[in-house]
């Protein structure tokens, strides 16, 4: 049972929790304690040292918006942002409840009355903005993967195609999202015209910018992975005379999966970095816009709130990476899990 738990923890990348399980199981306490110290204790000490240096260093810097906030001030702002979020939620709930009551009363008086449902249009809170950012990055990332994986597989199977596309990839790969953004903005404005738009233009612009920047790692990794599949595996397919489709789906893609995942992981990391910059400029209501608005706002709280955003961005980036690693160890053959 506890072996299974350890297995789960290792698959999920939560190695630090393994000594705790082992301790509970009554294994050699001394050995597990020293393990726990290296895996949990040392990182904890590093964090504490960082907080100390930050708090001492920050108090020395006087900006036009007051003293640079230390850890305590930032924590205070984080709590503030949460409270604002709660207050905004309550307002929204109250709004919807009033609307419902109003409409019900209207219907009671006259069953044929025309009733209107309106959305609450309050200011998006910090947490709403996290949600928007995640949605945007996933849209851009999924779009990029849907293009990059098939094109990568095709390039891996055909050296000629790879040779043809390679210069384009090399040229577009290093382009910064900030350079793409004006072009994407203009193209989206010109092409995406709708009376009742499903998505906001700023959302599309940010997502497409993420796509353009996160295409490349997946594409290159997929192409290299498919091109370097073990020759024997390909020969197995030739001897069996697998048709083209089976050869791709039963041999090429599973064989390339570990490296494709590495590419996806890099792509998602790039996408998340790019997104913040894109949102700042495209004014997509996400974390990037939050940072930009606070910067423009320039109140004495602003720097603290921006730092909350910085830490949040870091933590979410870390969680996204963790998600990809876990998916990889679950799905690809290098570590068959659950057997």
């Amino acid at each position, binding site marked *: 049972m506890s072996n299974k738990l350890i297995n789960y923890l290792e698959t999920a990348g939560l190695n630090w929790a393994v000594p705790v399980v082992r301790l509970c199981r009554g294994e050699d306490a001394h050995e597990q304690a020293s393990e726990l110290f290296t895996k949990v204790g040392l990182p904890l000490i590093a964090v504490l040292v960082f907080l100390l240096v930050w708090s001492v260093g920050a108090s020395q810097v006087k900006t036009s918006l007051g003293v640079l906030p230390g850890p305590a001030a930032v924590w205070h702002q984080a709590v503030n942002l949460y409270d604002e979020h709660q207050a905004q939620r309550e307002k929204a709930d109250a709004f919807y409840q009033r609307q419902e009551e109003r409409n019900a009363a209207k219907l009671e008086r006259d069953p044929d009355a025309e009733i209107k449902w309106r959305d609450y249009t309050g200011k998006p809170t910090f947490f709403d903005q996290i949600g928007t950012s995640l949605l945007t990055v996933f849209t851009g990332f999924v779009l990029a993967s849907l293009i990059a994986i098939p094109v990568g597989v095709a390039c891996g199977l055909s050296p000629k195609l790879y040779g043809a596309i390679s210069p384009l990839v090399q040229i577009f790969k290093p382009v910064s999202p900030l350079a793409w953004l004006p072009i994407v903005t203009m193209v989206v404005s010109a092409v995406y015209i709708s009376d009742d738009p499903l998505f906001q233009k700023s959302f599309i612009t940010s997502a497409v910018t993420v796509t353009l920047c996160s295409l490349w790692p997946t594409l290159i990794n997929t192409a290299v992975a498919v091109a370097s599949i073990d020759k024997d595996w390909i020969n197995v397919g*030739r001897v069996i005379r697998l048709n083209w489709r089976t050869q791709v789906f039963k041999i090429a893609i599973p064989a390339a999966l570990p490296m494709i995942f590495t590419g996806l992981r890099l792509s998602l990391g790039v996408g998340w970095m790019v997104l913040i910059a894109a949102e700042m400029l495209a004014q997509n209501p996400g974390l990037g816009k939050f940072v930009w608005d606070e910067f423009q706002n320039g109140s004495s709280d602003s720097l603290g709130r921006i730092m909350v955003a910085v830490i949040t961005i870091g933590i979410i980036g870390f969680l996204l990476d963790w998600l990809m690693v876990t998916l990889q160890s679950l799905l690809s053959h290098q570590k068959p899990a659950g057997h």
Partner: protein
Amino acid sequence: MSVIAMRKEHLHDLPAETAGEAPSRPRAFLDLSGVSIDFPTRKGPFRALNNVSLKIAKGEFVSIIGHSGCGKSTVLNIVAGLYQATEGGAILNGREVNQPGPERAVVFQNHALLPWLTCYQNVELAVKTVFKGRKNKREMREWIEHNLKLVHMDHAMHKYPAEISGGMKQRVGIARALAMEPSVLLMDEPFGALDALTRAHLQDSVMEIQADLNNTVIMVTHDVDEAVLLSDKIVMMANGPAATVGEVLEVDLARPRDRLALASDERYNHFRSQVLSFLYERQRRPVE
């Protein structure tokens, strides 16, 4: 110069057909005639095999033995259709070989099992494709299980390759090849990567299966004992470049063969010393 001299010297050891005459004789089951192959290199084409001719009868177990680099695997790959001969070619059962196919199933040196499929699924991938429209689902399942049983792997058929030993993987590789019901089974140093004890076990299994099914088999090997123990015929390759067949030895020891009894058998040791003297006296590798 020495290679050519050697070839002439041993010409009389070869069956008359291999000298390239007498096309009117009854056709062999598998007929390689005048096979040469060039590999492109930066310094121009490199002739790996030169004028290899071989005739193999149905149900015969043939080993190809030689020093490393003498092109023995290349011969096998040409029969498999994985390489194309530059000159000459192979005819199996009256049809020219020009692409790979399941009637010439290959057992690869390093098993080549797909690690993301279980043993059963590895065999299934072959069976599903080869017997498409000829067997129904139930018959396919029974056929897969039958073949895994044949190599004594039915107990672990739902395990992944990473979970079983090297010998077991090679057994599954053999089951996969047998499941294609090949006319010729091609084995490329099938036991080369295994330890001596496991190798002996697998050799016994192969003899057992061979007694059962009476397949036509071509096996590439560098192990003299293995060649003498398993084969009806041993094809000894002269050294490359431009390697060719040096000598063919008929091993007419009675079957079933028992490795313990044969160890002190005079004729077994005679065959063994013939192969050894070919490899280590006449084809001694030049000091590198």
